[in-house]
């Protein structure tokens, strides 16, 4: 009997898993790439800040050297006009996304993959990042849930996407799911649409995902 399309698809997924296991360098390459990409992003953010600072300093110097009120007014007027154009440009640039309300996304993944993010908890992110370590997952000392939150599993594509009562998205990385599974912290037959209870520790890190026998109240 001929191999079906479904069997080919499964063979492809298996092959992806085998390559992941075979390639011990892939994990290192991935971490290296990640750090380089985030460093590039930081570089761009810094250069934009420098640009803004430079513009502001130039305008101050011009104002300082203006000998007459008329020149000062002219400089001020052109600055206002420039800022206005720039502002309109910015508004136009981001217009496509403006039509959508972006829900808060809670992202849970391993800290080993993002040293850069670990020091930036003070930032006002809409996407909140919760970092984990292997030791944290393995430790029994921290395995003490302080809160349970109901959620529904909406998608599974390696990572898990859950939606909580506040309609916020909770994304759990593929590696973290694998780790929780290994340590028996995923309980029940969880599929898309299943209501679950997320057990969190005091730091807001997920300790376990359990299928809820009875519906938890939001």
């Amino acid at each position, binding site marked *: 009997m001929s191999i079906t399309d479904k069997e080919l698809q499964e063979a492809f997924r298996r092959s992806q898993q085998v390559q992941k296991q075979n390639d011990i360098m892939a994990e290192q*390459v991935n971490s290296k790439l*990640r750090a380089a990409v985030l460093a590039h992003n930081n570089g761009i953010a810094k250069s934009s800040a420098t640009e803004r600072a430079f513009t502001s300093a130039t305008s101050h110097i011009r104002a300082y050297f203006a000998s007459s009120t008329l020149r000062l007014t002219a400089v001020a007027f052109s600055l206002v006009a420039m800022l206005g154009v720039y502002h309109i440009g910015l508004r136009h640039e981001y217009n496509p*996304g403006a039509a*959508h309300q972006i829900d808060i996304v809670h992202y849970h993944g391993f800290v080993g993959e993002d040293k850069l*993010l670990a020091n930036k908890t003070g930032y006002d992110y809409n996407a909140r*990042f919760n970092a984990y370590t292997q030791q944290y997952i393995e430790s029994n000392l921290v395995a003490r849930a302080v809160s349970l939150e109901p959620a529904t599993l909406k998608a599974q594509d390696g*990572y898990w996407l859950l939606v909580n009562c506040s309609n916020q998205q909770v994304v759990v990385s593929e590696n973290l799911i694998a780790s929780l599974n290994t340590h028996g912290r995923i309980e029940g037959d969880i599929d898309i649409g299943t209501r679950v209870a997320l057990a969190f520790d005091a730091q807001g890190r997920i300790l376990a995902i359990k299928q809820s026998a009875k519906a938890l109240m939001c």
Partner: protein
Amino acid sequence: MSIGASLQSLIQGKRTTALGVSERLMLQYGKKGDDASLAALFDLHSNKLFYFLRMLSDSTMAEDVCQRTWIKVIERRHLFKSGENFQAWLFTIARRTLIDECRKNSKIEYNSEAVEALSLSEQLKHVQISVENDVAKGLEKDAFKACMQLLPYKQKEALSLQFEGFTVEQIANICSAEKETVKTRIRYAKDALRTMLEKL
């Protein structure tokens, strides 16, 4: 609120719920340029992207193209519009970057027609050698990957994208090809794969 405005907000509300997690993260990243959204997008898509690129090239080139792709995502973040599929957008950038790279250093032939000239027995021999090499290196054998790598470039590209979950229409957009052409490439690729896997 007018009826028109209510309808508009209702439609917008519906669109909001239809947005996927990656699309939300990308819109958020486009707006703020923050590390958290970018890191989350990287974690969700980097493995698949790397595997796709490695299927079409080698490890070194895949790594290089992967990095260039993400840098383009950073630089073109304002070009991503709501309603677009993030993964399709990412893979389109990656594919174009890979082709540019292939043309630049001509290490890998974009049109690997030569492979098509191999007879079935020669193809099977190649697969066996590749699997034996993996085993000799102490790696788990992966005959499927060895067979995939023997497919002509464009067939391999279309089939890999389909296995990643893209629709024929999305693949046609990513590869800048007609839908019918994509369907044909996928059909040929699957037939060739089946023949090789069944004879192994």
